């Protein structure tokens, strides 16, 4: 996993194995255990193809989780990402229907997400509304817009090119057999997975190697201290929410492209998965703590659980219960550790 984490930033090698690296280690262990357990239970689980499926399924939570992590580190929360995802997809779909080619139409979708995030940032910093309330409002607004613009009906027949981002893959190897169905030797790396990898590297670089990343941590650690130190706290927050919105826009396009249909009621409760991924990965809702690689581990724990439990025939209801328990356990383990 791409990781620019530097010992000195939030962890401290020379001092004691820090709670952050401990948390990441235990999350990673949980992930390994899950994979082991599911492989044991089902031969089809630990295969390249299923691995790629998990990767594909996790990419949406992963993208949302990246934006969520930035926002959580500033000490905020973004409840609007699930709805913004839907609105972005709708904007892309409507643009395509209006004759815009697929690539610029997708760009319109991502920009829509960024604008929603920008509005969140302004409401939070300039109108001084708490992030919970501001993004709750945006959650309703974006969902309402998505439903209103489409009349709550899905937009389909968007053309093959629209499905490429969600369904295409790199290095796909297909053997011609002469028959009707060619034999797939290697399913290829799905584009969403590549997109996720790029986003992970970019976000980790931003957080650990850029000034704006350092300011995101400082703002969440102690907002007043950051301000007195000359950090432009408002601008830092607006930046984080805008990125979160843009990631939601990206995730929306990936998801809708995979379905080759725009669904205005897609993405309900996705914000909770994204928050869960960040929290399992060690982000603190108090702000100032969190990192991208942790969130990715969190996203994959959720993805692997869903996939493995599905294969084992466990119902979606039970899956929710299991994920809920894991979220609480992850935070509890961290607290027990910190109390010592």
């Amino acid at each position, binding site marked *: 996993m791409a990781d620019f984490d530097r010992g000195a930033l939030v962890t401290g090698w020379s001092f004691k194995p820090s709670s952050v690296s401990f948390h990441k280690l235990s999350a990673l262990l949980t992930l390994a255990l899950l994979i082991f357990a599911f492989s044991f239970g089902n031969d089809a689980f630990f295969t390249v193809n299923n691995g790629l499926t998990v990767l594909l399924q996790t990419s949406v939570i992963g993208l949302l989780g990246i934006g969520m992590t930035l926002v959580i580190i500033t000490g905020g929360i973004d409840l609007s990402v699930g709805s913004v995802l839907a609105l972005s997809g709708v904007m892309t779909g409507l643009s395509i229907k209006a004759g815009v080619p697929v690539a610029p139409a997708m760009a319109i979708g991502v920009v829509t997400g960024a604008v929603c995030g920008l509005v969140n940032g302004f409401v939070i910093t300039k109108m001084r509304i708490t992030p919970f309330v501001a993004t709750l409002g945006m959650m309703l607004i974006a969902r309402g817009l998505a439903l209103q613009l489409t009349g709550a009906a899905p937009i389909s027949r968007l053309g093959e090119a629209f499905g490429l981002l969600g369904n295409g893959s790199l290095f796909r190897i297909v053997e011609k057999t002469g028959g009707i169905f060619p034999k797939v030797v290697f399913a290829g790396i799905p584009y969403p997975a590549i997109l996720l990898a790029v986003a992970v590297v970019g976000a980790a670089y931003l957080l650990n190697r850029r000034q704006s990343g350092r300011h995101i941590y400082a703002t969440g*650690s102690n907002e007043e201290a*950051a301000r007195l130190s000359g950090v432009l706290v408002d601008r830092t927050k607006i930046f984080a929410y805008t990125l979160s919105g843009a990631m939601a826009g990206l995730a929306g396009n990936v998801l809708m492209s995979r379905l080759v249909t725009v669904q205005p009621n897609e993405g309900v409760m996705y914000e909770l998965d994204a928050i869960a991924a960040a929290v399992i990965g060690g982000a603190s809702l108090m702000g100032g703590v969190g990192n991208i690689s942790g969130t990715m581990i969190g996203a994959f724990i959720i993805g692997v659980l869903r996939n493995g439990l599905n294969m084992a025939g466990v119902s979606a209801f039970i899956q929710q219960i299991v994920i809920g328990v894991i979220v609480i356990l992850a935070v509890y383990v961290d607290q027990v550790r910190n109390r010592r």
Partner: protein
Amino acid sequence: MTTPLVEMKDMCISFGGVHAVDHVSVDLHPGEVVGLLGHNGAGKSTLIKILSGAYKADSGQILIEGKEVHIHSPRDARHHNIETIYQTLALADNLDAASNLFLGRELTSSLGFVDDDAMEAETRKIMGRLNPNFKKFHAPVKALSGGQRQSVAIARAVYFNAKILIMDEPTAALGVHETQMVAELIQELKKQGLGIFLISHDIHDVFQLCDRLAVMKNGQLVGTAKTSDVTDDDVLGMIILGKCPPGAVPGPGAIAEEAASG
């Protein structure tokens, strides 16, 4: 007389009806240490926070080297070479010493990468001078002791070649030895021509380090005096009773009969 480095004239600020700073005027010359004294809640921190850009004054005028300036943010203050050690230290708890020292003005490489190694090297240098026992360069500052945190805050204020230094109870959490080092540092900086506002509750420190002192009571200025013109008891009388002794220049906060006779 030379132009003062800083002149704060008739500063006022109130928080919901409380006059935290009420028509206070103070000045500071290059190479001078001015002590700000007063009981808890007298308005000392609030006064200097106006100068450091943390608060915006309701009224009043700030002149730096004779020119009127408008300080609306901590960045503006830094722009005028004003550095501050806040009473609350103002550190980002989850970041390490170097990240705190350079917070808001991180060293970056030519590609815009945050240069953590360079920042750590600089931090080691300055901490070596201020607090040679300091070793926890990789720990988040929340894991440091009160005195260690204070050293980090002091290092941040003196690193960037300030002209005007504001120290709000800089030695409150420091041990005897570290306090002595800060006293030596103040004397050294003074020789370099810095002007320093020093807020302290320790009258002994004030007499040892300050050239002049200003006493506040209930948001008002009781008076200012050269340290050589007043005694310990005079100063205590100013702080506790608001009585301005003959050696001091009375301010609006001095009690009436004394103001008339002084």
